[in-house]
């Protein structure tokens, strides 16, 4: 079990510890998904949970994303708090219909509760190709009624997952699988919930604002460090939750820096960057010295082969140069 006391916690550990603490705390929380039981899930996040909580609360399913998501909705309606694991975020496409037409609208239509947490490992840079590397936040961000949480650090993964499970709404909790074992945070790991809808200013700066989330945070911080050497002061904002979005923190920063870049690994076209840029230009128009730039994946699927994938998803040099251009133009 990834949940024992440790000196450092990986992003993956943090997810596991958060799940464990919520299951201990609330008998109504249960895990459901493909291979989550004895196997502990494709990425081993739920390793050991079956032994600790038994098959009543750690439920292996047939391969049936539509049905399992609908099942979670029904269980949530009458008082349980399901945590659904999608094996890869790519397969959430098979649950698009119930998420949009059952989960998202039900509370608005009826006033009934719908506390479903959907965990899904997403993202690129693992050479996993077009159908194991998708960023799926834009599939759902247009649909009113779903929260979309995308932590970029291990500590946030824990605090935000706890908040997601306690939230009374459907929450899409997108775990960046590239970070699972690449990122650690030292003990102790806080198990305080982190409010959904609050951005975090990771590095303060004065010349340009970079708005990002999930793995983009680390790319932005790396770029900020490099640009600091050239005397360029970058403010990095980690949105942490893309829906609802902490727009005020973004606007305040842009009013200060007058320049903004949005960074994400999803494709550019109608990615979250479009909404963020559209809002910034409206709310901070008279403060802007430059148009808002987007750094995002090319508008293609994510290729498998390393040179191809590297050409599609944002790379460090492109990130640094785009921020530099916006900051100095």
């Amino acid at each position, binding site marked *: 079990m990834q949940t024992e006391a440790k000196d450092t916690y990986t992003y993956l550990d943090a997810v596991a510890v958060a799940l464990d603490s919520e299951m201990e705390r609330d008998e109504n929380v249960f895990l459901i998904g493909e291979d989550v039981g004895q196997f502990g899930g494709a990425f081993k996040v739920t390793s050991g949970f079956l032994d600790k909580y038994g098959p009543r609360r750690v439920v292996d399913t047939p391969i*049936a994303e539509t049905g399992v998501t609908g*099942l979670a909705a*029904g269980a949530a309606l009458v008082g349980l708090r399901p945590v659904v694991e999608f094996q890869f975020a790519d397969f959430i496409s098979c649950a698009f219909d119930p998420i949009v037409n059952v989960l998202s609208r039900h509370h608005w239509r*009826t006033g009934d509760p719908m506390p479903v947490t959907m965990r899904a490992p997403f993202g690129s840079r693992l050479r996993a190709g077009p159908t194991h590397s998708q960023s799926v936040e834009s599939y759902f961000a247009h649909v009113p009624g779903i929260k979309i949480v995308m932590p970029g650090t291990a500590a946030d993964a824990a605090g935000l997952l706890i908040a997601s499970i306690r939230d009374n709404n459907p929450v899409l909790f997108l775990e960046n699988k590239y970070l699972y074992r690449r990122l650690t945070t030292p003990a102790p790991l806080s198990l305080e919930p982190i409010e959904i809808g609050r951005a975090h200013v990771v590095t303060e700066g004065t010349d340009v604002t970079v708005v990002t989330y999930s793995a983009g945070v680390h790319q932005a911080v790396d770029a900020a460090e490099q640009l600091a050497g050239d005397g360029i002061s970058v403010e990095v904002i980690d949105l942490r939750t893309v829906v609802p979005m902490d727009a005020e923190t973004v606007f305040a920063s842009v009013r200060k820096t007058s320049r903004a870049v949005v960074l994400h690994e999803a494709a550019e076209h109608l990615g979250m960057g479009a909404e963020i840029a559209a809002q910034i230009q409206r709310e901070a128009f008279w403060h802007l010295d430059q148009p808002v730039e987007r750094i995002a994946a090319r508008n293609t699927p994510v290729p498998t082969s390393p040179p191809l994938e590297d050409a599609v998803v944002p790379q460090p040099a492109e990130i640094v140069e785009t921020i530099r251009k916006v900051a100095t133009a």
Partner: protein
Amino acid sequence: MAAEQDSGVNPPPDSRTPTGTLAPPIATDIPAEVLTALDITDTSANPPASLAGREAEFLMKLYEGLVRTRAFEDRMHSMYRSGDLLGSYYSGNWHEAISVATMAAMRDEDYFAPLHRDVGAHLMRGVPPEQVMASFMGKAIGPTGGRDGTLHYGRLDLNTYNPPSHIPANYPVATGMAFAAKYRGEDRVTVAVCGDGSTSRADFHEAVNIAATMQLPVVFQVQNNQYAYSTPLSVQTRSASFAIKAVAYGIPGIKCDGTDVIAVYDAMTEAIERARAGGGPTIVEAVTMRMHGHAEHDPADYVLPELKDEWGERDPVALFENRLIEADVLTAEAAGRVREDAKQWAIEARKIALAAPMPDPADIEEGIYAD
């Protein structure tokens, strides 16, 4: 020209006559022993289920339910015609026996996940008729206050799920309600309803399969009314019946006559009590005919006249009334009174619905998220 070729992917239109009338293929094609070995019961070709040993009070409750449901349907048909409604009305004519029997077989605390033809079930569960009307009128007193409309009047406080239009999205949701009951060790059963056409979809298959493997306390009812919008059974499935689809999920199936309120009651009771006792899901197919269009705007001229005639004889309300009179449970006079009461009840409901206000849009952006 293509139209003359005979390498048609579908059979030509004339041959696409509906199958699955009450001389059902499974009864003729598949021997009874085979069905028994598979745990499929087919009572649909039997004579009407016996009234013997049923209490008069119980029979009268069913009868009143049938009459009220019919009175309500009649009122909705005329309200559609007089322009009271925002759009169309999805008639449940000839489904009354299924709705009423299902509710009679269920306990109040059992969960119900209906679709669009289950108006009688909602009425039996206690939704005031004016609320159902209001749902078709966009009025503030409707169960969703006008946010949703038409058939979306399920009320969770009555243990009823309010489904979206997507059919049968209620099936997976029902497995979840059943899951929760089992999780908590409650002995509530969940009943989910869908039509013949709905069985072709993802949600049917995934839900029934999941419920079967997890042995959840849920009954999957298929109201086989022989059409899905304009689509006859032969275009919908090639299987011998809907009950027999249970074989694919390793669970029992029951096929019954959906115009015989007692037959449906018996089938549902068997399935519900099995589920309550831990015996897992059952598929219950109740065969009837959709006597109106898909909704009132649809003249349904694609339905074969023979079929309409044949089934016209099988009015579930009239059939049961006659049997009760024959069995001396009811007199013609008493029946008349029940019918007149029901009519007044529906007329009264219309008055309330007509007088009700439209909703105030001020808070329409609220409630996207629960607190």
